[in-house]
């Protein structure tokens, strides 16, 4: 009770501060200016992303008595089924299955021949020619594998390809490469033997190493679960395609066949695009699923951070989860894309959420600046003005006082975020109208779900508040360390600027995940929804799991709070 009373008194004290009014004034000016700058531009139609839907072709098909109005229906389905087959037969691919041993055998025989050539100089000319040809075929083979469109079922680093090729090319460049050269050397057998021996000696260590690499190449095998998932997805994808095809035929027969009403034609074209998009997105899902498995395999072997995934896996997973959810739940591409990137690429017109998110980005930045200032003064300012002595002589533990001050700042921040968000939404609804479209959000790169845009909006507010609260706690910690409010404010702002810079400029580096700042931006865990257009939208989160990131953030906050209370308790005032 006393704590609540004290917190309330702290809140009143803060909101009566003249600087608070000045800053709130600046906040409103910034918001009003931003609101006027806001440009509700029409988004490009989603149809532009899928090409090839031609009404003329459909009419021709219809008039020529084809069984289907969609000329490419079978072709598209076959194309998709081929992708499924590739994934299903991945483990049994014969063309690459023996690669490991073949590379090893070829490599060994290549150098055995070279050794033989040196030992039996009379066969040198023929052998050198053979070696030359064999190395050419080996290089071609490497290149064909490297550039193959087929999924490759072995774990072969692209760097190894480069090393192999470079080694072979170097040896070939050192050897007498033309028949003329060889004939010339044939006249001086000793010179030839000496030259070949010299080449062999200089490359032997590298060759041995390459053979070892060949022998250690691992084969990738997908587990039963993966194959089940592919089969399951195939059923969903084909079912959706069948439904869409039937709907297309029906719509065509009813509305397009004898009457070219423009609106209906456009509607039909959209349906056709959705149909084609189902094939395209299904192919993306299949390839992503394969790549995720392969990257997971690779990650486990050579690139594993403690609990952190590779960004590539994370982004692949996010895209896969999104499309898979849309196809499994028979959500046409056009509607799914509305959700995928709510603000930028959606075919919807600007609505209240666009307006609210845009202004919340501005208000959140301003609120962070305001709250950091107030937090910086809450301890250092009061110590400097002698007010802390007045407070500390009251019957209240310093820990309680610390928490009352923090709670007051957090409460103001929360109410400000919530109130401003709702005001923006209400104004946005008056100007641009509300949207009833359901969003597909992808949580933590893997779990997709449908969510009403309002709840998405509420989470956005919480997310911004968490980030804001994090900087409040940091500013309070700094404020406790200093007795000079100017130092405290300046250092707190420097920390914030550092955080913004690392979150933007260094977002793609591996070590950024070890800094606490990026973990305060929890909206990054929600792909597929509107999050990508948050303020500082160029941030790309480097793939921590939500739970681990949250734990890291909580642990960091707990350490800051513990350190703050312990220092504050021990300070002589």
């Amino acid at each position, binding site marked *: 009770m006393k704590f609540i009373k*004290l917190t309330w008194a702290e809140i009143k004290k803060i909101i009566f501060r003249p600087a608070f009014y000045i800053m709130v004034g600046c906040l409103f000016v910034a918001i009003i200016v931003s609101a006027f700058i806001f440009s509700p531009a029409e988004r490009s139609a989603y149809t532009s992303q899928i090409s090839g839907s031609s009404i003329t072709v459909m009419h021709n098909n219809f008039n020529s008595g084809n069984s289907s109005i969609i000329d490419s229906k079978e072709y598209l389905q076959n194309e998709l089924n081929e992708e499924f087959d590739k994934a299903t037969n991945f483990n049994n691919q014969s063309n690459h299955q023996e690669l490991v041993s073949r590379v090893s055998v070829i490599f060994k025989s290549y150098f055995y021949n070279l050794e033989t050539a040196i030992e039996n100089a009379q066969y040198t000319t023929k052998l050198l020619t053979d070696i030359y040809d064999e190395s050419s075929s080996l290089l071609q083979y490497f290149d064909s594998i490297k550039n193959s469109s087929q999924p490759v079922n072995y774990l072969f680093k692209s760097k190894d390809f480069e090393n192999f090729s470079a080694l072979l090319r170097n040896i070939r460049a050192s050897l007498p490469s033309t028949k003329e050269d060889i004939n010339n050397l044939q006249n001086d057998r000793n010179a030839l033997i000496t030259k070949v021996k010299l080449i062999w000696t200089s490359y032997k260590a590298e060759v041995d190493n390459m053979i070892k690499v060949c022998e250690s190449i691992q084969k990738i095998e997908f587990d039963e679960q993966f194959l089940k998932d592919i089969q399951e997805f195939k059923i969903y994808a084909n079912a959706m395609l069948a439904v869409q095809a039937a709907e297309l035929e029906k719509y065509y027969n009813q509305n397009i066949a004898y009457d070219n009403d423009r609106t209906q034609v456009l509607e039909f074209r959209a349906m056709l695009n959705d149909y084609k998009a189902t094939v395209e997105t299904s192919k993306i899902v299949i390839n992503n699923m394969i790549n995720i498995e392969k990257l997971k395999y690779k990650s486990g072997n050579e690139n594993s951070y403690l609990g952190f995934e590779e960004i590539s896996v994370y982004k692949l997973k996010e895209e896969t989860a999104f499309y898979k959810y849309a196809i499994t739940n028979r959500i046409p591409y056009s509607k799914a894309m509305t959700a995928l990137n709510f603000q930028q690429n959606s075919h919807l017109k600007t609505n209240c959420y666009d307006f609210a998110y845009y202004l919340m980005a501005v208000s959140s930045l301003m609120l962070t600046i305001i709250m950091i200032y107030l937090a910086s003064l809450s301890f250092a300012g009061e110590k400097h003005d002698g007010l802390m002595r007045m407070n500390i*002589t009251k019957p209240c*533990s310093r820990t309680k006082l610390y928490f009352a001050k923090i709670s007051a700042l957090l409460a103001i921040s929360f109410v400000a975020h919530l109130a401003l968000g709702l005001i923006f939404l209400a104004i946005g609804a008056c100007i641009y109208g509300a949207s009833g479209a359901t969003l597909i959000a992808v949580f933590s790169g893997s779990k997709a779900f449908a969510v009403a845009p309002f709840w998405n909006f509420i989470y956005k507010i919480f997310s911004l508040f968490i980030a804001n609260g994090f900087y409040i706690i940091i500013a309070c910690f700094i404020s406790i360390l200093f007795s000079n409010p100017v130092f405290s404010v300046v250092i707190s702002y420097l920390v914030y600027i550092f955080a913004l810079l690392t979150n933007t400029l260094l977002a793609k580096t591996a070590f950024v995940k070890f800094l606490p700042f990026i973990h305060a931006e929890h909206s990054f865990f929600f792909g597929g929804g509107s999050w990508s257009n948050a303020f500082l939208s160029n941030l790309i989160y480097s793939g921590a799991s939500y739970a681990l990131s949250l734990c890291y953030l909580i642990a960091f906050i707990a350490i800051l709070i513990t350190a703050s209370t312990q220092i504050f308790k021990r300070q002589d005032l």
Partner: protein
Amino acid sequence: MKKVVLKVNNLSKVYKERSAVECLNFCLYEGEIVGFIGSNGAGKSTTIKLITGLIKPTTGEVYICGQDIKNREKALANIGAIVEAPHFYEYLTAKQNLEYFASYFDKVDKNRIEEMLKLVGLFDRKDDKVGKYSLGMKQRLGIAQALLNNPKLLILDEPTNGLDAEGIVEIRHFLQDIAKKTNVTIFISSHILSELQNLCDRFIIIDNGKIKDEFTKQTISSKSMAINTFINVDKPTLASQLLKAHFNISSKQKENKLYFFAEKENRAKIIKLLTSNKIEVYGIGNVKVALEQKFLSSIKHNDKGAK
């Protein structure tokens, strides 16, 4: 036997290698006004900070109404304090400031806040921003916030610092009034000794972080100790002889002034005696240097002892 309100036991504070206060031992009793005297840097403020929990002691204990200061919430519930100077949120009004400080206590309501504002004579200015207050008004508001929780011990560190003569008298009267009305124990540090002499019942002298002396008001008011009267005359030598002959009073002469101790009832007789002997009396007054003398003698005595 009077109740002990504050007990300071072997209290020491050492900063790195410098000892700020050393083995302080004293008690304050219910209802008394105790002056805490010391020169600048003697350790007055450090002692008060230790008592109010602003700094932690190196050794020793502080008990406020039987509660150890380590148990902050219970111990500090019994005190009201102004340490060094009263500071307020200048952008808030007096009432808002008191409301803020009241939030630290469980049982301080709006009536109590208004009562305190009336007590310190700031009720009519309660809605003015504290930034507009004079130093004297701030001191009074400081005392009001210190009395909010009806404390048993009021600790005032240099409450007359920066005040003009009128302000000092105002604060003195005010504290005497509070002491009478509330029976609160007042522990007051100041270096304006004449003011303390008029206000306090007991004195504690601190020098170099150590308590040098403790004595009551009666001690310095005793005949042997004090010179309480001066008289300005045209014939000081003759006047001195007359005082010795008729009243057995020894006096010290400084120019035309004579300094001596005289009971109040004898002062009229002295004037009559001098005028009847054709000595012009230009003025007679009180000399309030007894505490100063005592303070200086305490310090010197201890210094000699130390040597």
